[in-house]
């Protein structure tokens, strides 16, 4: 039986203290795991950009890592690393690392040949070109990857908690289910959806702040008449 939305809302309000208490660890796990994943993706993608041979060696392994079923791997990771923050960070990183890595590597490759050639003609070395052109060229890709994987991150964290945790939305859902409280399960689901939406919105906001030229490009209509004549 599906509980009525009104009941879910009422119960969510009644249990708001417990919900909030269990949401905070999920947020912590999501953000910590995601931050680790972004840092790792950045470092490794830069490395791979400088060493294409490493890329060919690494990508099959990374792709294989994406086929690991979370259902099977989550309990194992919890078994190995306990109920603390570490297994959650690992699982969130596992599901978000690959999309971030692919986004960054593709972003570097998208660098305009002309810009790279011009920089080389100016005397810029490989590292300089990476910093001045390849990295900024990857920003739109990076943020596209960020928006996608932030949604995976929440799911990853909840999965990890489901497999075993002291506190968190995942374990809350599990115990609500075991107590035959589908209304509370749904309340937790609603909270996790809201969390995902909020993080997605945050990613969009950060992108706006980090790439102010994007809006300029969209708003501006090149006016090829008056300005044109020098």
């Amino acid at each position, binding site marked *: 039986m599906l509980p009525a939305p009104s009941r879910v809302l009422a119960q969510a309000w009644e249990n708001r203290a417990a919900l909030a208490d269990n949401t905070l660890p999920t947020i912590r796990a999501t953000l910590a795991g995601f931050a680790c994943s972004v840092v790792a993706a950045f470092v490794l993608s830069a490395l791979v950009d400088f060493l294409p041979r490493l890329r060919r060696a690494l990508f099959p392994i990374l792709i294989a890592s994406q086929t690991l079923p979370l259902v099977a791997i989550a309990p194992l990771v919890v078994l190995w690393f306990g109920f603390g923050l570490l297994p959650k960070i690992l699982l969130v990183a596992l599901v978000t690392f690959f999309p971030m890595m692919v986004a960054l590597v593709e972003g570097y490759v998208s660098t*305009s040949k*002309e*810009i790279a*050639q*011009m*920089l*080389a*003609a*100016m*005397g*810029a070395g490989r590292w*300089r070109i990476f910093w*001045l*052109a390849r990295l*900024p060229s990857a*920003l739109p890709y990076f943020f596209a990857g960020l928006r996608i994987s932030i949604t995976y991150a929440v799911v990853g964290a909840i999965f990890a908690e489901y497999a075993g945790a002291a506190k968190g939305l995942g374990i809350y859902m599990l115990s609500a289910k075991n107590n035959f409280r589908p209304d509370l399960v749904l309340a937790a689901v609603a909270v996790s959806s809201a969390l995902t939406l909020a993080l997605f919105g945050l990613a969009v906001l950060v992108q706006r702040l980090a*790439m*102010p*030229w994007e809006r*300029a*490009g969209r708003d*501006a209509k*090149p*006016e*090829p008449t008056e*300005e*044109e*004549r*020098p």
Partner: protein
Amino acid sequence: MTRLELRDVRKNFGTLEVLSGISMTVDDGEFVSILGPSGAGKSTLLQLLTGAIAGEGEMRFDGAPLDDHGRHFAFMPQRDALMPWRRVIDNAALGLEVQGVRRRAARERVAPLFAEFGLAGFERAWPAELSGGMRQRAALLRTVVQRRDMLLLDEPFGALDALTRTAMQRWLEKMWASHRWTALLITHDVREAVLLSDRIYLLSARPARVVAEVAVPLPRPRTESAALAREAAAIEASILDTLLGAGRTEFPIV
């Protein structure tokens, strides 16, 4: 005084022969154009000069072989290659920054030139906010502030509409008259070449070789009088005859 000298420069991409023995010179303070059909290998020639690719043959600058010691060229690529993520002033200052000038100092050095380049008031704009002609002027500004020995300009106005292009050509003519850059311009616009150049090398279609060298002994500025315009038109006509005329069936429409 000869600055740039190419002798029998060749380039193949695999089995595709692109340049088949190009020889040319550019003197100090001279404006030289390379006029040739699309796909001839003009951009390839500039890539050889900037060292982006390697070819065969001899390339000398001030008598010394061109290698990666000493950078002689300020290069303007075929598309403007402005970085969308840098404000116009930081795009203009890019070459100086790469040379090791601090960003603040680089900005201070390019800012006074904005008026001359018709970009005053757009220092803090993003490239996306500029019109096509302004983008090209910004790219040219970025090129000339590097103060290299020679400018390499790859079809700087090729992507502009006809009216803007003409305005830009006249503007560049004026700019050149006051700065006297040593310049190598690539173009497939005959009128542009005649308006701007001291000498023009005509290239064949791929594999490119020099079919003719045309001197343009007209006084400057060349847009002043009707008499000059007629003389220029006569040179244009003879160039078109050379490129398209008498049995050159391998030559596509420029």
